[in-house]
């Protein structure tokens, strides 16, 4: 395949792929690596791309197809990676920029399809059609991208923390964390008192419960930072990236300065 050239990896531009690459080091066969990488990227980042495409006017099926094609293109066609100078180390920006470029090219020249193998190496496996929250119903495509990015990030963190708890026999830890911290935030439900939690889950005293929650919180935090760190190229950038996410507002919100 023309663009299938692993030696082109490296440098800032290839860094993100390298980061993710390192996550699948154990895959041996070379063609499997591409497949694994595409799969990984798809799985982790399909939502922002999908939302962006929807906002750009594609319907559900088109958006899903394009999403898959896009990630194939990113991995298989290093050219696309090569053009992302502007992102300065942020995968989020890089992805958005590349996506935009991809769309431009795609619209301009449908023969781009030919470069992608007819049979997909990895596919988008979902039947869900995510709905953006209300405040984003009229937002620009870029804003939707960022919203979806943020929510995807959190979803993955939550999922990973949950899994870790399960694997380490910390189911109760997870449960009380969920009830006391997660759900109140997400569903605006009333926070459960520590005493009640102790009763419900058979914990000795409130102090213990408190510590358990703190443990999960710490874990949550470090997983969050790790995920953010994966998408940038330096620790300093990680802090700034998190700040950006904290401050991100859709265009029509009022800002000062």
């Amino acid at each position: 395949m023309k663009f299938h050239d692993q030696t082109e990896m490296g440098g800032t531009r290839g860094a993100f792929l390298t980061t993710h690459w390192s996550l699948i080091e154990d895959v041996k066969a070379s063609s499997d690596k591409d497949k694994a990488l595409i799969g990984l990227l798809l799985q982790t980042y399909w939502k922002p791309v999908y939302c962006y495409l929807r906002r750009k006017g594609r319907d559900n099926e088109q958006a899903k197809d394009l999403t898959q094609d896009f990630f194939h293109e990113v991995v298989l066609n290093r050219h696309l990676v090569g053009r992302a100078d502007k992102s300065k180390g942020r995968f989020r920006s890089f992805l958005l920029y590349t996506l935009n470029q991809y769309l431009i090219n795609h619209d301009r020249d449908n023969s781009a399809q030919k470069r992608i193998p007819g049979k997909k190496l990895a596919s988008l496996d979902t039947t869900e059609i995510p709905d953006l929250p209300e405040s984003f119903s009229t937002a620009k495509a870029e804003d939707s991208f960022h919203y979806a990015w943020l929510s995807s990030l959190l979803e993955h963190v939550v999922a990973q923390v949950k899994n870790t708890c399960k694997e380490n026999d910390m189911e109760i830890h997870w449960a009380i964390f969920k009830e006391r911290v997660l759900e109140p935030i997400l569903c605006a439900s009333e926070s459960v008192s520590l005493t009640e939690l102790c009763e419900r889950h058979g914990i000795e005293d409130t102090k213990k419960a408190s510590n358990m929650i703190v443990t999960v919180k710490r874990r949550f935090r470090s997983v969050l930072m790790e995920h953010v760190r994966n998408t940038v190229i330096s620790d300093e950038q990680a802090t700034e990236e998190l700040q950006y996410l904290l401050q991100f507002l859709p265009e029509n919100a009022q800002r000062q300065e």
Partner: protein
Amino acid sequence: MTQSDSIFGAELDRLKRLLTVGEEECDEGPSEHTQRTASLHILTDRPGGRIGRYKLMSILGEGGMGIVYLAEQDEAIKRQVALKVIKPGMDSNRVITRFEAERQALAMLDHPNIAHVYDAGTTEAGRLYFVMEYVNGSPITEYCDRHKLTIDDRLRLFLQVCHAVHHAHQKGIIHRDIKPSNILVSNQDDQVVPKIIDFGIAKAVNQPLTERTLITEQDRLFGTPEYMSPEQADMTREDIDTRSDIYSLGVLLYVLLTGVLPFDSDTLREGGIDHIRQVIRESDPKTPSTRLARLGEEARKHAESRRTEVATLARRLHKELEWIPLKAMRKDRAERYRSASEFADDIENYLNGVPLIAGPPSAAYRLRKFMRRNRSLATGIAAVLAVLIAGVIVSTLFAIRAERKARTAQAISDFFSNDVLAAVDPLTGEKPVASLEPILDIAAQRLGGKFDDEPLVEASIRYTLGRRYWHIGKFDAAEANLTRAVELGRKRLTTNDRQLLVYMGELAWVYAYQGRNDEAEALLAKTVDCMERALDEADRALQVAKNRLAWLYLDQYGRHEEAEQLWTEVLEDIQRRLGPDHPDAAGHMEGLAAAYMAQGRLDEAEKVARKALEIAQRAYGPEFFTTVHNMERLGKVCKALGHYDETEGLYVKALEIRRRILGEEHWRTRDVRSDLASLYLEMERYSDVEPLLVEAERAARRTFGNDHEITNASVKNLIDLYEAWNKPEQAAQWRVKLPERQAKLL
């Protein structure tokens, strides 16, 4: 509801709260914070949304130095403050030290228009922060535009700012980062109150203009080089003084008045750091009125925010108002206002209709600016212009009584700088002046009415303009100005006065070039006559007039002997008083040679011509016009004698010089080119003739247009050439270019 459902689809602020999970050590859920609508925490390794005794409430904004939070102080006093956390990468210790050095002074800053700086410190994570009075307002430029403040209102608002800055300066504190976002304006009890923030911080933080300050962060550019003074841009931070703030205030005023920056942001930033530094240090900003005029449609918007119209605004600026910000923005800080209070005073002067401290840019300043822009033409136009102005002054002063000399010199100088060069600037903009003509045109246009009670001054300027026009071949404009010069001269002078006679002689000469030979001769003869009576025989003016009269006789009337006689007279005179090889003789000798030639006395002509050329070359160098005239003259003589090789050498040299100095289209170039072409034609060197004739046709078409006798003549020359050369196809090609009626005649 599955987990992922509840994350994707949740409102943004909920997601953000998830991002902050794990910051506090305590086990509490977010219940405490649900009361607040937007509870954002600083990201530090240390838990808690607090820094010292300040609890962070929300983000006010983000700037070049870092993020500004709204915070609440709940120890000692309970109050709202603005907390600015500096971006990582600053050397916190040094900054704090610098800040501490100023802290005492800062504490003494007590002015209603200056925001207090209360405190500074470092977070446990090592991030530097400052605590300041919280000002709830908008940047001054935004405020003025939003409320559509008039120019006068803006000036009054700006006055308050000046006074505040002055107060700080008196306490020894320089701001160093004055810009709109550091001057917040709010409405307090029906009063418009500006407050300057960040006093003492910029200096402590001390951000130099480096690549870092312009890092693009999510496509927002930080750092505001537009307001940076030249000395700050220069990086010699050691001796920045209060005048640096004056500069920034000047830029601010500029923006308040016009709506645009003196240096356009986009063009400033596109060149990179060194370019930015250079522009700030060296380029003179366009005057506000010029900037406004260039904006076109956009200008209307700016005028509207000032409740006025573009024309009115431009006029107002141009008269005087724009001098104020420009004075504050001088590159040389010694030329700026000496203090913020002097700055304020001048604004008050303006508002009260009193003459300003800031004057119009001086003649020297404008000329320097003009010269700088026309550097490549230094030996050409700029120099000529300088000589022109000086020449006018000198020649005028001869006619003026002593006590008025200084004033008159100044008046002339001012006329050129304020009325002429000032008008030229917007015309030429970034492009250098290509020729003297537009400058002459403007001067001629604006001269009327300027010196009504001093006709001799105007006459003198008209005379100079007239000569310049003649020199560049614009005979009609020359005639108009010289006629006026004579008219004006006649008001105060008689034909006994040298000045008037000189003007008359010049006018007559122009008549000759216009082909008005009778008038030329009449006037010139009269002039010579009067001169012989009124002036000393050694007077150059008389010699020049005789010389010209002689040419008239020679060229137009075949009155060769009379011409010869005039020249011989003059030469004898010169020889007697100055010696046989005096440079003055060269020009007259050329004429004498021509007179001999016309009478067929070729050997004598050759002798004289050679001598003349030798003298001219020695005295004036190879390129001076007298030398070239003599080259051409000798060439003609040699041609008549059949010494073609020598002729060719002389003509080729002469043509090259003419072309280079006067251009392809000048009539003198035309003459020598055509002489050379005839020579080649006679020698039957057709391939050498061709390029000359092509050039001649091109020049003629450019100068005279498509249907002019000279243009047509040059086409005919080409047709003749090709026919003589036996190239009928080429001939035909050119025949097509003749207008029909002409072609038929061939």
